[in-house]
């Protein structure tokens, strides 16, 4: 017996060339699954010195979040009722925003609406203790996370030659490669490939939404999207245990039949394998479990961490069906179901990255000042991050709060000027929220958790009508951070990628012209940015 030449499969060469990726990555996906992990470099998916595996939960705020209305530059004189006649949020008098210290967290108590002062009037923008920025009151539940030092608020985040098309710009965030339309796979997908676990773990990257986002899309390894956890089982032929077995067996055998080289087949095979693996994993998780806070954070009762009905939404049921006691809008239950599923999967399985999205941020008209569409969206984000922290602190299993980073993404910010429809249009830089137990956030008497929203930043926030909010094309907020620097920091310092891996996850990460690592002028459009933020 002899072992002659085995021809290399054309499909492999074709695909790896089309991806434009480094040879190392292409090689890794083409070798047997069992070998991949052994050959993978770096620490993604590997237990660290503390024996823990680090994970990431992402939230994509689709439609472009108005960063100026989230982390508000109250100290900028140009943030006023001329630029924003109806959308301007005045500072809350409860704690002076000019005072140094923790974030202002106004507790409602049992008899007051969640987002109201005890006298029933509306809350204003909440001091963040950096003597410049404030938090939109709809984000008030971020204050306890901030004050624990577990939250970084990054302002003025963007990328060179910002596209103001939702689709382009979302793509660039998701591929980690601005202005490069040739890269077709997602930034988290590539990070998962680098882990070497995509063939052996039942789950690596998982999304909980209508379809797999580009963040997790790629043709060489199957990431999973689940639109509804309750439907994750199969019917049989007939629908009995034996019938299911027969169906499973024949389906598996049929899908093993070799097919001619087809553009879609390799991807389909990966996803079928993923179906089989995840069916088994999911059977062991109760996705409907409820999780109660261990403290009465808002001065009322302990609230449900993942509100999925009116009765589990803040103090609504406990206070006589009082709608003012909701913590989140009543149309956000699907989102919190998805968020809970993402949290459970990170905590109960070997998944490394999970996430979902919140739609509806494209607030061209009737954006809402203290109530309305944008405040409602902010309430989701505020309570989501609050709830995630408490969930992982109270229920650590495969993932502790210290092992997790929660990060938000959004394609761009919105115009400094309010438009004629009481809304804002597509613009440039915006805000990222990054939370987790190992974040280098606020310290009493020490550092602030606000990055990029202060006149004392290395690249200061410049105030006035010629200031930061007008420095791109005279109408948009100018960036001082590149989103890739933020994500790069997370990939390296949290997930544990090597510099070489980071180069492949975020193409050209170390390229001096992009200044992502050390800061400096980005040559694509000549804008100076700050170095990787020291947030973890």
């Amino acid at each position, binding site marked *: 017996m002899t072992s002659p030449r085995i021809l290399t*499969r054309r499909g492999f060469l074709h695909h790896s060339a089309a991806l434009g990726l480094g040879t190392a990555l292409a090689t890794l996906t083409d070798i047997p699954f069992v070998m991949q992990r052994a050959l993978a470099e770096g620490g993604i998916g590997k237990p660290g010195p503390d024996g823990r595996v680090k994970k990431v939960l992402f939230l994509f705020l689709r439609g472009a979040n108005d960063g100026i209305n989230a982390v508000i530059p109250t100290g900028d004189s140009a943030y006023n009722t001329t630029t924003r006649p109806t959308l301007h949020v005045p500072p809350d008098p409860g704690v002076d925003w000019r005072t140094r210290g923790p974030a202002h967290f106004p507790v409602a108590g049992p008899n007051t609406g969640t987002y109201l002062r005890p006298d029933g009037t509306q809350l204003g923008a909440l001091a963040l203790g950096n003597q410049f920025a404030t938090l939109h009151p709809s984000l008030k539940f971020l204050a306890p996370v901030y004050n624990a030092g577990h939250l970084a608020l990054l302002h003025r985040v963007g990328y060179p030659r910002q596209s103001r098309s939702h*689709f382009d710009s979302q793509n660039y965030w998701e591929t980690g490669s601005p202005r490069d339309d040739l890269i077709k796979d997602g930034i988290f997908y590539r990070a998962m490939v680098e882990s070497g676990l995509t063939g052996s773990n039942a789950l690596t990257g998982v999304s909980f939404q209508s379809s*797999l986002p580009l963040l997790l899309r790629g043709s060489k390894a199957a990431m999973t999207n689940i639109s509804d956890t309750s439907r994750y089982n199969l019917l049989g032929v007939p629908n009995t245990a034996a019938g299911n077995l027969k169906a499973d067996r024949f389906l598996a055998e049929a899908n093993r039949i070799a097919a001619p080289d087809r553009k879609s087949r390799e991807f389909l095979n990966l*996803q079928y394998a993923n179906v089989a693996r995840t069916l088994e994993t999911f059977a062991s998780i109760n996705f409907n479990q409820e999780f109660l806070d261990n403290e009465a954070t808002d001065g009322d009762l302990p609230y449900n961490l993942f509100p999925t009905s009116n009765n589990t939404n803040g103090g609504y049921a406990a206070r006589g069906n009082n709608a003012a006691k909701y913590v989140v809008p009543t149309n956000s239950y699907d989102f919190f179901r998805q968020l809970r599923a993402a949290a459970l999967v990170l905590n109960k399985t070997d998944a490394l990255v999970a996430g979902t999205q919140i739609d509806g941020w494209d607030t061209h008209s009737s954006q809402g000042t203290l109530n309305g569409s944008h405040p409602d969206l902010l309430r989701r984000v505020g309570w989501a991050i609050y709830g995630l922290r408490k969930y992982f602190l109270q229920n650590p299993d495969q993932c502790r709060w210290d092992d997790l980073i929660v990060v938000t993404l959004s394609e761009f910010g919105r115009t400094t000027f309010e438009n004629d*429809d009481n809304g804002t249009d597509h613009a440039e830089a915006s805000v990222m929220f990054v939370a987790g137990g190992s974040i280098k956030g606020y310290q009493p008497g020490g550092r602030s958790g606000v990055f990029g929203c202060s006149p004392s930043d290395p690249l200061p926030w410049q105030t006035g009508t010629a200031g930061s909010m007008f420095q791109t094309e005279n109408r948009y907020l100018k960036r001082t951070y590149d989103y890739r620097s933020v994500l790069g920091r997370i990939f390296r310092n949290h997930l544990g990628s090597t510099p070489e891996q980071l180069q492949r996850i975020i193409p050209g990460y170390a390229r001096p012209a992009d200044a992502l690592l050390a800061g400096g002028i980005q040559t694509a459009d000549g804008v100076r940015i700050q170095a990787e933020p020291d947030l973890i």
Partner: protein
Amino acid sequence: MNPSQSRSPRWSATAILLLLLTPVLRAAETASPDATGIRIQSGRPLLEFQPVPSALSYSILGGPSLTQPLAPLPGTLQGFLWTGSDVIGPDSGFFQVQAQSIPTNDIAVVNLLNRLAYGPTPDELERARQMGPDAWIQEQLAPEGIAEDLDTPEPSTEGWRKVTFTGTGSASTLYIYLDGPGDVYLDGLRLVLGASDDGTRPNLLRNGDFETALGSEWVRSPNVSTSARTTDPVKSGAVALHLIDTTGGTTRASSLYQTITPSLSSSQTYTLTYWYYTTASDRNLTLRLSGRGIDSVERLDGRVRGIGTHASDLLNGVGSVTQLRSWHLLRAVESRRQLNEVLRQFFENHFVTEYTKTRDYLDGIGYPNAVAGLPAAQTEFIENRRWQQALLNPGVTFLDLLRISAESPAMIVYLDTVSSRGDRRSDGTYRVANENYARELCELFCFGVDNGYDQEDIVQLSRVWTGWSVELRAPGQEGNPFAPRSTTYKDPSVVTNRNALTNLVGTWSLWYRNTRHDPRSKYIFYNRNPNGSPITSSPRRVPARFGPPWAGRAYGLALTAGGNGTNTLAEGYSVLSHMANQPFTQEFIVVKLCRLFVHDDFQTGYDFTDDVTSPEEELVKAAMLAWENPPGGGPKGQLRHVLRVILDSPTFRSTLASQHKVRSPLEFAVAAVRAFRTQSAEGIPTAVTDGVGLQTMLNRAGRMRLFDRADPDGYPETGPAWISAGTLVERLRFAQAFALRPTLRPGNELDARTSCDPVNLLRTKRPSALSNAGDAADYLLDLLFPAEGPANLAPYRELAIQFLDTADNGITPSPYASLGVGSTAHDQRLRGLVAFLLTTARFQEQ
């Protein structure tokens, strides 16, 4: 190179690859069988290879040296592993895999049915194979020549619905009742032994046709005592029954019932069929056996829910979005103008709008919340009908379709033009127009992203659309963009709130409000000074990469101030005419059409002037040239010429296209229904849907909510966007539920009206397949995986036969041939096979 090879120099087996194809097939360059392994076992050669597309047969040639011709070698083929019969010596030898393809026309026909239609039906597959691809294309490219009246409301005399329900003989009394006061007409009641009713088995019910006076066989409880025989309407024979229920019933004491003699057996399967006709009762009709072994419940909502009724309701503003989707899905299943349906869906998705946004807008301007969806569905229906009609015009151009989209209230509301103003304020400044429509007109509807425009063009363009609003127009005034609101009243006698929107007859259409228009000059696609102002003498020019005849052409559009009053409406139309035929638009639309018809890997941005070229680039360019210079003259952008170039290309007709695309949820669900849909000898369709069950599936398998896409880029055309473990699970569940109906356990998620009857299909098309497992496998594999080629289907065939010959436990042998036709076991075995085949990776491909 290979250490083991170098250590055994006497033996250097090599696989040499060669593919022999019929002379007309053009796929040779891309499809040659790769040998993936060759070894010697017990002296015999074993050769493993990757299949090639559409293989009719494989054979292995060999010989000791290349200087002599290779000769066919005896051996056996197991899947794609060949074992030679002859022991060969330890000397060098050469092997060659040869594949012969099925005829090219058979490949082309299947590509046509998968891309220009929503998959083959049993009849259409036969018909298209017989016609050949050219005649079929010719027919579908001229849909106006295909007779069809699906959108005509069903005449009331044809408004009978047939219901079939299979179950067990739990007891021998059949009850019939409504769940409240109401009435319904019944005719043709039959109850037979077996899992289906082909009309040949004896009817176990007496006087099920009500042709004789109601005697003791039918007992009328008090609540149905006024029920009587009638001669109008009638389904069969001369008489039907008019069931009148005064209170509603639940059991024997409150129903029309019959005690069946001789008694039914609880271990046997029976099939109940009946026809009903209803006019107005909003009730549930129940026909059931005591013990509910058979338990048929039908919702009577006063309408026959056919395509025609949906169309008429939608046109009249009383149809819901669910009806709109059913209309669309039923047309996809049933229409003979399949290409017209595929193209309409393509353009509906290209010029995407969101039903919910229109509904919310109408809700906000005065419609009660509960009914705001009706005019919103109407606007979606009307734009679709306009596209449908436009596509029947032999000279239809892209501009025609673009205009329909621009004028549609659904679009005007969707991209915020409805509230966009550019008129002068009292302080002398101008209002800032909303950029939304202008941006998507460039990025998504015409030029494609980053293709020939920039942000300043969008700002300039946005001012063109100021003043485009919507208004409710009286009948006959829909085409007049200046007409006032309808004053035709549904109820003229109403005094208070006479002008409420719900009391006005009309349809929403374009309203041009010139007082909101920005009257200043617009310079679109012009070079600009550093301060952003246009250089009016310097229009931009088409980039060099387009090559002749396009490169270097000026494509600036100047709309100079001076227009006033209502004539500024013309600015919008000038923009549409200007943009519709620019090379950027030609390229973007052609690329999208190629992705729809050929495969996913077409791009915009080819350099048409360099030496690097590909079949894809060449096809795009050829189609763009047909757009630019239509053969036979006439306006640019005539779609049929563009399509003709794509459909006649070797790339489309060959294995370069076939099976390379993944079905979208829409294509998957509709293809499943179509695959099993023929008419049995008795005129009964062998697969049915009312559209609603498909909508549920589309939503679950990727949130494909037709007519209600939130993002303006439309639903994706490419496969990976649709396929993940979660969406795949939904496809598998749908396929299983669809195939296993009606024997699936109660609580089934799928609408009862989306199901198939494979037994009846085989009885109609291939009776021998009812008892011969090989015939069943052959028929179903050819139907579901056509053009795969018999040699590639061989492993599937083996598996399918094994499935049919194995009991439900998956282990015990249980020959298909010995299951009695008509028995539950037989029906279920075949349904199991169908579910199995529909859940494979192969059926996801088209």
